[in-house]
């Protein structure tokens, strides 16, 4: 349970060692080099507007590296499209591949060559897209020519020396006679026309029309009024043209295929592409940091944060690698250092939950351990099925054992669900749920004798008991939160605040609860028999009253005006309803637990509808597998979300604000490879 103490680090060295030092720090992954060190006093060496020391803009160099990363990534994307890698989901658990420093440097020297190949892949991809975009164009042309197939003249045929030929289409279905009569109606003076219907469908009628040259204009005018449209011109006979276009289409398709195989041939380059993507990412990061250094002609200064536990190692490695001066100083009182958490094996996994909310700010304690004390239990109560818990614990446990090299973050997540699984097993046993009521149902249906399982509380038949248990957990959880507030205040020397904000509330809420347990109305509602003596209840009431008075008097203590203070104090007292709603909120422990068991029962019941017999058993197995996987997925999600909610809203609401900045060391933010560190 700790926020690791940080130290400021200052490294002064010669420019010639700059690269070595930075690369070493990047591999050590334990120094954060911020944009600007906060809370810095002006008399330190690093003053930005110095004549001797200046920062150098490295954004141009970075842009090149970033571009290379992008090219490599895009090329990888193209490769994955045309030459997909055979990879199962679980392979991603294998973690990054390891390279020695020497291998890494050697392969990095060939980076440009690989980038060249990546560009070629992208070029091929571009040609492929162009070729492919030809295909629909050609297809559209063929489509447009289709109605003209029956014509043995080219579409741009204009007629003979005496006659005029007009080729085109009407946007409707017309017969030869209809066309002739309509045109004759519009152009009564003409000598005569010959209409040849080439093809006709519901949408259009394609015709070849012949008339005398002198009648041409009148006929065209008539046609215009009939919405006549000209086809695309071409001096080839349509059927021939279609043949030609088909050839084009085939060529385009072949071209696409050719490009695809060409790209696929680059598949062996995948590893190299992944490598250069990482390599240039690291160099880009390095140049980013380089821009943050203050440099003079021959020396440089680097400032940052390093966790105290790594101080010795960082110093030893740095001084061994180059002639540098390394100095560590304590964090100033007003300085917000980045936050790094360190916890034991059991609590560590929920660091992610804390981080999701916010890192502790200066003066706050790391809430990870208290969160972990409740997290797995709350999760377990909401999923509350021993079999589901066992599945979760086994699945995550096997994955953790099998893939030892997986990334640390992934490992933490799996470990969290492993512990959640254990919590689920425990509460499943307590509430007698194994795939819901599968044991009694199966024994009754298939073996004719019902076997009952032991349970402490049966939530479905004794929901009130379960509700009381939920509220009890709520009170413990909330009081634990209040206790941490007390502890933090005391630790920061604010004894008075600790009394005002924690002790008075303990008295008020605790007293009220004790008093409540002696009143009939509460006892009846919760279906409990009186177990607290009335005298104790009176003591509780008195304690609550003292607490209430204390809150009214101190709740508004930041106001100087006594009247305002009193009003604010009364308002603070109103917050007691907040405690009520906080406690009620834990009824979700009951509700979600019931949801799991009721849905399990529904599936179990559905499964047994086939009766006892060969097909009945098969049906039961199928329904049970499908149904319970679905139920496990949905309710594990619900349990996760609501455990987080109880932690963030109810628990953190009592004592935790957060707002700290996460420690992000200058590190190897790679995707595929990592450098093996030799000591």
């Amino acid at each position, binding site marked *: 349970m700790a926020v690791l103490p940080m130290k400021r680090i200052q490294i002064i060295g010669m420019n010639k060692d700059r690269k070595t030092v930075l690369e070493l720090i990047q591999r050590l992954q334990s120094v954060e080099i911020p944009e600007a060190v906060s809370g810095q006093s002006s008399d330190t060496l690093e003053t930005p507007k110095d004549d001797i020391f200046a920062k150098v803009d490295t954004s141009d160099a970075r842009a090149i590296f970033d571009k290379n990363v992008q090219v490599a990534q895009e090329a990888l994307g193209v490769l994955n499209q045309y030459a997909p890698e055979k990879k199962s989901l679980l392979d991603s658990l294998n973690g990054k591949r390891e390279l020695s420093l020497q291998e890494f440097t050697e392969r990095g020297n060939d980076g440009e060559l690989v980038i060249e190949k990546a560009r070629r892949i992208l070029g091929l991809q571009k040609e492929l897209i162009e070729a492919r975009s030809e295909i629909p164009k050609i297809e559209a042309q063929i489509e447009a020519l289709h109605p003209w197939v029956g014509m043995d003249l080219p579409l741009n045929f204009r007629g003979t020396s005496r006659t005029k030929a007009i080729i085109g289409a009407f946007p409707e279905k017309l017969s030869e006679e209809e066309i002739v009569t309509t045109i004759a109606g519009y152009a009564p003076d003409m000598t005569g026309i010959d209409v040849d219907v080439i093809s006709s469908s519901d949408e259009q009628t394609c015709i070849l029309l012949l008339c005398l040259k002198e009648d041409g204009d009148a006929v065209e005018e008539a046609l215009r009024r009939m919405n006549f449209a000209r086809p695309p011109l071409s001096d080839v006979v349509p059927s021939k043209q279609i043949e030609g276009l088909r050839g084009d289409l085939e060529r385009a398709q072949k071209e696409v295929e050719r490009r695809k195989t060409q790209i696929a041939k680059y598949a062996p380059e995948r590893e190299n592409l992944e490598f250069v993507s990482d390599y240039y990412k690291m160099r880009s990061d390095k140049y980013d940091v380089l821009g943050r250094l203050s440099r003079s002609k021959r020396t440089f200064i680097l400032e940052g944060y390093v966790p105290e536990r790594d101080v010795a190692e960082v110093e030893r490695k740095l001084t061994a690698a180059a002639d540098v001066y390394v100095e560590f100083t304590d964090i100033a009182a007003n300085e917000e250092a980045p936050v790094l958490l360190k916890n034991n094996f059991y609590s560590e996994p929920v660091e992610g*939950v804390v981080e999701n909310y916010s890192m502790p700010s200066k003066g706050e304690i790391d809430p990870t351990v208290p969160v972990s004390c409740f997290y797995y239990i709350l999760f377990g109560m909401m999923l509350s099925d021993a079999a589901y818990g066992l599945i979760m614990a086994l699945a995550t446990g096997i994955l953790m054992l099998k893939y030892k090299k997986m990334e640390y973050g992934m490992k933490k997540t799996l470990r969290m669900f492993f512990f959640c699984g254990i919590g689920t097993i425990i509460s499943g046993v307590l509430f007698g749920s194994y795939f819901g009521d599968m044991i009694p149902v199966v024994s009754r249906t298939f073996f004719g004798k019902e076997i009952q399982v032991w349970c402490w509380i049966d939530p479905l038949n004794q*929901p009130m008991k379960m509700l009381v248990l939920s509220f009890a957990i709520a009170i413990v959880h909330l009081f634990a939160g209040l206790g941490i507030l007390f502890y933090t205040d005391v630790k920061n020397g604010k004894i008075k605040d600790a009394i005002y904000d924690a002790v008075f509330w303990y008295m008020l809420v605790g007293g009220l609860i004790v008093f409540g347990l002696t009143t009939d109305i509460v006892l009846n509602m919760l279906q409990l028999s009186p177990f607290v003596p009335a005298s104790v209840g009176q003591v509780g009431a008195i304690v609550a009253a003292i607490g209430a008075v204390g809150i009214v008097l101190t709740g508004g203590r930041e106001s100087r005006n006594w009247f305002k203070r009193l009003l604010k104090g009364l308002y603070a007292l109103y917050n007691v309803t907040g405690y009520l709603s906080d406690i009620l909120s834990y*009824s979700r422990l009951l509700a979600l637990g019931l949801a799991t068991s009721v*849905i399990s029962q*529904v599936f179990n019941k559905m499964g047994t509808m086939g009766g006892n017999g060969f097909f009945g058993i098969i049906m039961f197995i199928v329904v049970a597998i499908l149904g319970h996987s679905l139920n496990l997925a*949905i309710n594990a999600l619900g349990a996760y*979300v*609501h455990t*987080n*909610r109880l932690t963030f809203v109810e628990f953190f609401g009592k004592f935790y604000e957060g707002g700290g900045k996460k420690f992000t060391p200058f590190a190897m933010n790679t995707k595929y490879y990592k450098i093996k560190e030799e000591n």
Partner: protein
Amino acid sequence: MGTTFALLGAASAALFAGVGSAIAVGRAGQAAAGAVTEDPSLFSKVLILQLLPGTQGIYGLLIAFIALGRIGIMGGTLPGDDVALGLSYFAACLPMAVVGLISALQQSKASVAAIALVEKRPDQFGKAMIFPAMVETYAILALLISILAINGIPA
């Protein structure tokens, strides 16, 4: 008559809560699909946010199931002609039906907004998840009352 009313209650719990969740998950799904077109790596995160307003339907099912179990459709004793008893079941199912419907619809709005949040700032997923979960509290409270009420009806 009694059985009819009781059945009406059980059905409306599953019906309204289910309708609400279906609409809500659909809405959130549209927003989620939009987010994934921008950044496919967000899939698992937005999927969780999409599913959040789906729980009301499950709660409705839960109430319907408990009620059906009590009124004898699936074992237990039928209210038969006892109208008062039937109406009691109906009333007990109402909180889940009404609150389930409305809270699912409202929760979908929070979900859609949370998906937009995650789309812009994927690192804030933990907080985004809480906003829709806040709405769900009321569905859980309604569920609680419905369960307690059904259990309190003397069989």
